[in-house]
């Protein structure tokens, strides 16, 4: 359905003619207020260089196709408190998200907190503002045209000077925004718009943070106190303890003029690690908890994290990054959103988005076109063998003429072998993971396991064995049980790969393979030594040619696998260890890598 979703972008005039009936239907349901129509006409005529004489003015209601007025803005969102429960629920969700992220990604989410967007937030829009048409220039076709200066963010005095110097008549308005109190938050027309001198320009002066707009201050204080209360409960603190530590700086009982932005900022900063939101993000979060109503969840798939956050925020939701996964979308693009596009959710609902962390372009591995083994008793067909850049998946279909499916189970094993070296890097019993029992003597299964750079570097093959004896010992690793069985190789499936790699070496002789998806360290260091080293210096640093560095590694030895912004997987063998760091590597640009204090260059 991509063609359908792209229709708006790709439809030509001819296509539109083909859709004439639908367009007319859409038009039939359109209407506009007379004032808006007048403003548009005035603007168009000015842009075209025509005078706006009386003959061109609208007759009220004449051209509205229906007798209803088009709603020009969304239904105004009444600013009422949804109460502690709603707020607590939001907090809980955020905490759950943050906690889940902490578990999955080693306690550190790679978050790009969004900035609040007063222009796009439903509650902050200036629906009630009435723009002034440039009446003073209506008869002045000969007046010189210039552009409205960009004054947003400037102090009022400076902005006024610039606007007056440009020759405009100014109309001052105040509103709540995020531009900083006393600064100009917006102009109409916007900066950069061509407008004749002498025209009226409205400039809006920020009179405070947008969240106070039409909000009962006392009510706000209560809610913020509740927020603090809830946050601290989650954090295992009490208000009294908090107040004792901070003297009276943050009295949580007060609901008066002492309530300031600083309060929220410090609150946000204090719990930033918990929420992974900046103070501005906290404000946005709190602000939206005041809103009522619902909104449609937008589609953010394929956008960057920043774009997704902006779009979700603009739609009235509280966006939060929900980790990094690997799928078939562009690297860095959103590949998952926690609420589906088109769903109707309460405004302020946290909506998570996951970013694709591995460039799937490394999937130079073609989908396997099948291989099989067959004898008088057994047939094995490999019906799927693919790599998505993160995992290999092998699909087996086994059918026996002599064994039931129960007997089929546990009688076969497979080795994942590095094609170049013959080193066994994984082994498993068939069937192992996702299994479908198709009949008494037929089993289909899919085996998946993480791909490492070394696998892509050397290529792998899957060897399937039949075991004469097999005694599954539930308490022991499968590999030990497999070793007991006598194995006859039935099938060997090769897998080629041509991922670009680069090898770096350390003074002690260790080597490091840098591929486009990650790093593999081949070290003579024994597991025990490695553990000690990792405990002491748990980091990896990439050094670029220009001298800049980056890292992204947090290690948790107890977990056995550690992930943060990029996936990390390590594996110990008797001869040393292989250590893989997943991520899309610009290997041309990386000059050296420092792992646990050892420099590879």
């Amino acid at each position, binding site marked *: *359905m991509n*063609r*359908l979703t792209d*229709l*708006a*972008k*790709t*439809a030509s*005039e*001819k*296509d*539109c*003619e*083909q*859709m*004439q009936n*639908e*367009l*007319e239907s*859409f*038009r039939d*349901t*359109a*209407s*506009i207020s007379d004032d*808006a*129509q007048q403003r*548009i*006409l005035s*603007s*168009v*005529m000015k*842009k*075209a260089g*025509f005078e706006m004489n009386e003959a*061109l003015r*609208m007759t009220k209601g004449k*051209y509205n*196709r229906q007798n209803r007025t*088009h709603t*020009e803005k969304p239904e105004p969102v009444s600013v009422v408190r949804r109460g502690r429960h709603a707020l607590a629920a939001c907090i809980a969700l955020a905490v759950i998200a943050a906690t889940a992220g902490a578990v999955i990604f080693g306690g550190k989410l790679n978050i790009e907190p969004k900035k609040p967007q007063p*222009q*796009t937030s439903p509650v902050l*829009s200036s*629906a009630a*503002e009435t*723009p002034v048409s440039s009446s003073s220039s209506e008869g002045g076709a000969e007046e010189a045209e210039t552009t409205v200066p960009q004054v947003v963010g400037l102090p009022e005095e400076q902005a006024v000077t610039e606007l007056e110097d440009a020759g405009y008549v100014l109309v001052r308005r105040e509103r709540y925004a995020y531009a900083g109190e006393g600064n100009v938050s917006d102009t*109409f*027309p*916007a900066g950069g*718009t061509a407008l004749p001198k002498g025209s009226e320009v409205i400039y809006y002066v920020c009179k405070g943070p947008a969240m106070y707009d039409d909000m009962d201050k006392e009510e706000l204080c209560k809610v913020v106190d509740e927020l603090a209360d809830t946050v601290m409960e989650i954090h295992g603190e009490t208000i009294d303890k908090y107040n004792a530590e901070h003297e009276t700086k943050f009295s949580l009982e007060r609901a008066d003029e002492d309530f300031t932005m600083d309060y929220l900022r410090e609150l946000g900063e204090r719990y930033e690690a918990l929420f992974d939101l900046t103070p501005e993000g906290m404000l946005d979060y709190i602000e939206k908890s005041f809103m009522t109503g619902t909104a*449609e969840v*937008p589609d953010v798939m394929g956008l960057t994290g*920043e*774009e997704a956050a*902006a*779009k979700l925020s*603009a739609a009235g939701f509280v966006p939060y990054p929900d980790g990094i996964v690997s799928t078939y979308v562009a690297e860095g693009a959103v590949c998952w959103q926690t609420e589906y596009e*088109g769903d*109707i959710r309460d405004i302020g609902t946290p909506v998570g988005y996951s970013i694709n962390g591995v460039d799937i372009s490394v999937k130079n591995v073609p989908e396997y076109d099948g291989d099989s083994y067959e004898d008088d008793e057994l047939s094995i067909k490999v019906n799927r063998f693919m790599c998505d850049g993160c995992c290999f998946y092998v699909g087996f279909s086994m059918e026996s003429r002599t064994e039931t499916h129960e007997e089929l189970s546990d009688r076969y094993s497979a080795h994942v072998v590095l094609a170049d070296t013959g080193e066994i890097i994984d082994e498993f019993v068939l069937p192992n993971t996702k299994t479908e029992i198709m009949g008494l003597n037929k089993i289909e299964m899919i085996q998946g396991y993480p791909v490492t750079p070394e696998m892509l570097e050397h290529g792998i093959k899957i060897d399937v064995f039949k075991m004469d004896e097999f005694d599954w010992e539930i308490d022991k690793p499968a590999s030990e049980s497999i070793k007991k069985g006598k194995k006859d190789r039935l099938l060997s499936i090769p897998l080629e790969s041509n991922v670009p790699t680069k090898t770096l070496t350390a003074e002690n002789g260790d080597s490091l393979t840098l591929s486009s998806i990650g790093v593999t360290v081949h070290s003579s260091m024994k597991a025990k030594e490695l553990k000690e080293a990792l405990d002491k210096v748990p980091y990896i640093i990439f050094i670029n040619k220009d001298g800049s560095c980056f890292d992204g590694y947090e290690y948790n030895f107890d977990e056995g696998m550690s992930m943060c912004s990029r996936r990390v997987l390590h594996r110990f063998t008797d001869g040393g260890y292989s250590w893989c760091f997943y991520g899309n590597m610009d290997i041309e640009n990386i000059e050296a890598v420092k792992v646990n204090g050892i420099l590879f260059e």
Partner: protein
Amino acid sequence: MEDNELLGLLKNSPQEGLAAVVKQYSAYVYKIAYTRLGRVCSREDIEEAVSDIFMRFFLASQNDGTEIRSVCAYLAAVSQRHCINIFQRQIKRTPEVSLDEIEDTVSEEISAESNYELIDAVHKLGEPDSDIIIRRYYFGQPVSGIANDLNMKSNTVSQRLSRGLKRLKKILEEGMR
């Protein structure tokens, strides 16, 4: 006023013609723009976008090389591109596309990959499904908006969308055989 009258007026008396087009189509263009930009732009910005769209239409109408067969269709094509451009700019997705580029895109009729078959397939769904699909996917109208315009329940619209898409897929697949 019929399209041929409007286009004739635009040629003979551009000022009156432009005013007539704005009067007749401002609600339509505003609705297209609002549907696309309502969540990311202020009302002032949307009105600015609408006036830009009319300007583009006007410039095209004064260009002898541009053939406008349907004002409604031409305005839809220009509106969508302009609004999508603004939307993408708003969310910092893509660099700004110049006016010329947009005009070129429209006039060149990017139907190198024609949507004819797709739209034809949509029409085969019949009313109101074709209307719902075009509103949802061409105009980007939310389900609730479609339901309101067509006097239906949101659930009904969602169901019709879902079923319509399945039927559309089937029609397209059959068409490829």
